[in-house]
């Protein structure tokens, strides 16, 4: 690695459901980012976007459509599908390779133009074994949740508390989609989706455009007084077939360890100041916290009960409201990065955590019961 790469600025779209067409929505977030830095499209070295062929308003080969709206005209650009933390990593790699001084990373999903998320996620299932069973991300998560509750004695109330906490945080985030105060009872008594999951424990379907500008160390320092550095990443795929996996022992610990090693974090539960974790299903925040080493195995329920992960807690998790509040499927990973960036630079506004933040963790996942996990560590 020939130096450091840092985040210079970030921009998110608002409101969560937009009347803009795709071109305008992408253009606006791109332009907002460039304006924030005070640079022009010509100053951007390369662009990496994240969008999916299956979460893209019925248009395949996603980036061929919005190419020019993202500032890519006659530029060397590329795209990642499935997960926008992939695009964040690829943007970092392009800068670290020395071939580009700056990289713009943009993630976009216009959920309002897509079918229900699970209509799409059921297409992840192979047509021979999984699909006829009705496996999709929600039913797979329900299997995982049942196992989690049974193996560790996690209660339904503890799982529901994640929704209560995250939607409360979302009240303070003007970019959040779902903004309402709910109680544990309301969460548990909302309509069942796949037992034991209820509607309020499942993420919504949102629109979301988010962009960050990356730059090599010297350029980053020239463009901003507060660069946030890419300090570590880890990512790991799990095996495909659900029945072949222990759903409570996935690859997240491995991804996390790689990120911590690269970032030289020895005690992540003490050194990480704030975490933005992808929790498309409420209980997953608890399980992922365990697997990220932020609490001991089986203690995710106790972690949320203790208030540690609340906005004013010792280790706030999802101060933005998380994926339960805003779920632009492919873009949700880069939202975690943008939110972590704002927490570190103290620009998160009303949902800024009380403690000072120097090190933040961003996580994303997709696939059945967390088949793919990516972890990024950022720091000032």
């Amino acid at each position: 690695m020939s130096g450091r790469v840092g985040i210079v600025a970030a921009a998110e779209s608002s409101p969560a459901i937009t009347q803009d067409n795709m071109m305008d929505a992408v253009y606006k977030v791109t332009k907002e980012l460039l304006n924030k830095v005070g640079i022009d499209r010509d100053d951007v070295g390369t662009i990496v976007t994240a969008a999916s062929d299956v979460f893209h308003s019925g248009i395949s080969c996603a980036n061929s459509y919005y190419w020019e709206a993202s500032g890519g005209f006659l530029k060397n650009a590329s795209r990642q599908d499935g997960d926008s933390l992939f695009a964040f990593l690829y943007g970092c790699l392009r800068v670290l390779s020395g071939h580009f001084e700056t990289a713009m990373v943009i993630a976009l999903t216009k959920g309002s133009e897509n079918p229900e998320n699970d209509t799409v996620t059921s297409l992840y299932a192979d047509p021979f074994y999984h699909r006829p069973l009705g496996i999709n991300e929600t039913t797979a998560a329900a299997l995982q949740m049942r196992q989690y509750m049974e193996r560790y004695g996690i209660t339904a109330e503890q799982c529901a508390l994640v929704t209560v906490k995250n939607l409360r945080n979302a009240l303070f985030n003007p970019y959040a989609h779902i903004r309402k105060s709910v109680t544990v009872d309301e969460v548990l008594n909302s309509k069942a989706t796949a037992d034991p999951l209820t509607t309020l424990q499942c993420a919504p379907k949102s629109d979301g455009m988010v962009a960050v500008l990356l730059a090599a160390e010297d350029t980053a320092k020239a463009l901003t007084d507060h660069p946030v550095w890419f300090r570590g990443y880890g990512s790991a795929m799990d095996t495909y077939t659900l029945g072949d996996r222990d759903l409570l022992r996935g690859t997240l610990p491995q991804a996390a360890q790689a990120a911590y090693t690269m970032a030289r974090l020895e005690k992540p539960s003490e050194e990480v100041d704030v975490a933005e974790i992808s929790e498309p299903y409420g209980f997953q925040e608890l399980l992922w916290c365990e697997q990220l080493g932020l609490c001991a195995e089986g203690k995710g329920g106790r972690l949320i009960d203790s208030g540690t992960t609340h906005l004013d807690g010792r280790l706030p998790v999802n101060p933005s409201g998380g994926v339960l509040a805003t779920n632009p499927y492919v873009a949700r990973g880069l939202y975690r990065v943008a939110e972590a960036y704002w927490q570190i630079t103290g620009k998160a506004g009303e949902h800024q955590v009380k403690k000072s933040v120097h090190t933040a963790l961003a996580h994303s996942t997709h696939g059945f019961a967390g088949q793919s996990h990516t972890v990024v560590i950022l720091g000032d």
Partner: protein
Amino acid sequence: MGRAVAIMGTGQTHHGKRFDVSYPELVREAVQRAFEDSGLSPEDVDAVVTGTMPSMMEGIALNHLYLADAIQVVGKPLLKTETCGSTGMSVAHTAFYWVAAGLADVVLAVGFEKMYEGDSQATMTTVADPWIQRSFVAGAPGIFAMQSNMWIDRHHIPAERLREAAAVISLRNHDDAFDNPYAHIKARISLEEIKDSRIVTYPIRRWDVCPNSDGACAVLFMSEHKAKQMANPPAWIKGVGYRGDESYLGDSDKVRWNTAIDAAKEAYHQAGIVNPRRELDVAEVYNPFTFMELLLYECFGFCDFGEACDLALQGTFSRGGDLPCDPSGGVLCTNPIGATGLIRVAEAAMQVTGKAGAHQVDGAQLALAHAMGGVSQFNGIMIVGSQQ
């Protein structure tokens, strides 16, 4: 600029109608062959890059999840790079930048497509926006026919000369495919049969068009430090270029096609190439249509604008000519789309390491690989050489 990167192994499936294997088995066939070619094993791989065309092609979405075990990526980081037809090239670029950045020493790049599982032209039509372009693009032939006509019109190419040049290109690719054990279409056809074949979309005739193929390709990229510990010869990455422009076909000049011109210039600049026709020993041009191959020669500076037909008829781009193109039989004979761009890279690497067998260009040291995609928008280039 970054760390030096080499290709240390390639693997391809026997491309074609592969009803004998499942999708995961097809992918595994290519991955296994890359390991055999390089002498590496899955444990040596730090990271993996995959890509395909959209999931409608096979009916499985985000298929890196489904194919994780076949690719042998379980427990490792993965990137899923997709840029339409140029996906295979963009996958290679991702692997290159990953190693060049110093965050991995060995990256496995894999591209795949099992096109006989679905309807490729229906899928391709959905690349166009649903409001303005989709209703008339008529799949890939529709788009490339328009671009070809723009090129014919601009250069005032006489119909007979055009037909002759395209037929020569078609014949050369189909003959060369017989020397490539992995090629899909193996057809002995005459120049007259090609010229008289039925029109698909003017000026494109039956033998001007690539097939649908099932196939996969895997390429292992390695850091300089690791590559130099290996016994087998490396193919060094000398230059990488990529450009894209807007999705509305009518908005830009597709004859002096800026994305092709600029992508090639970016790669030539890195590789120190001034006169590509003289300095390159072989080129694997992404040629799903004969006319596109001719048009691209001009954009890549293999000849002047308007010269491609004449030079093709003189044999400049045939084996034995100044710059042999697509000795593998090219995309015209094999097109599993998500793999196709990566196959161009693999073939270029095979040429400069002397591993191309019966379709080896003697003494090849510097080779160009190319892929294109989008609604005639994207062009990607990778130049590989036997010398660092």
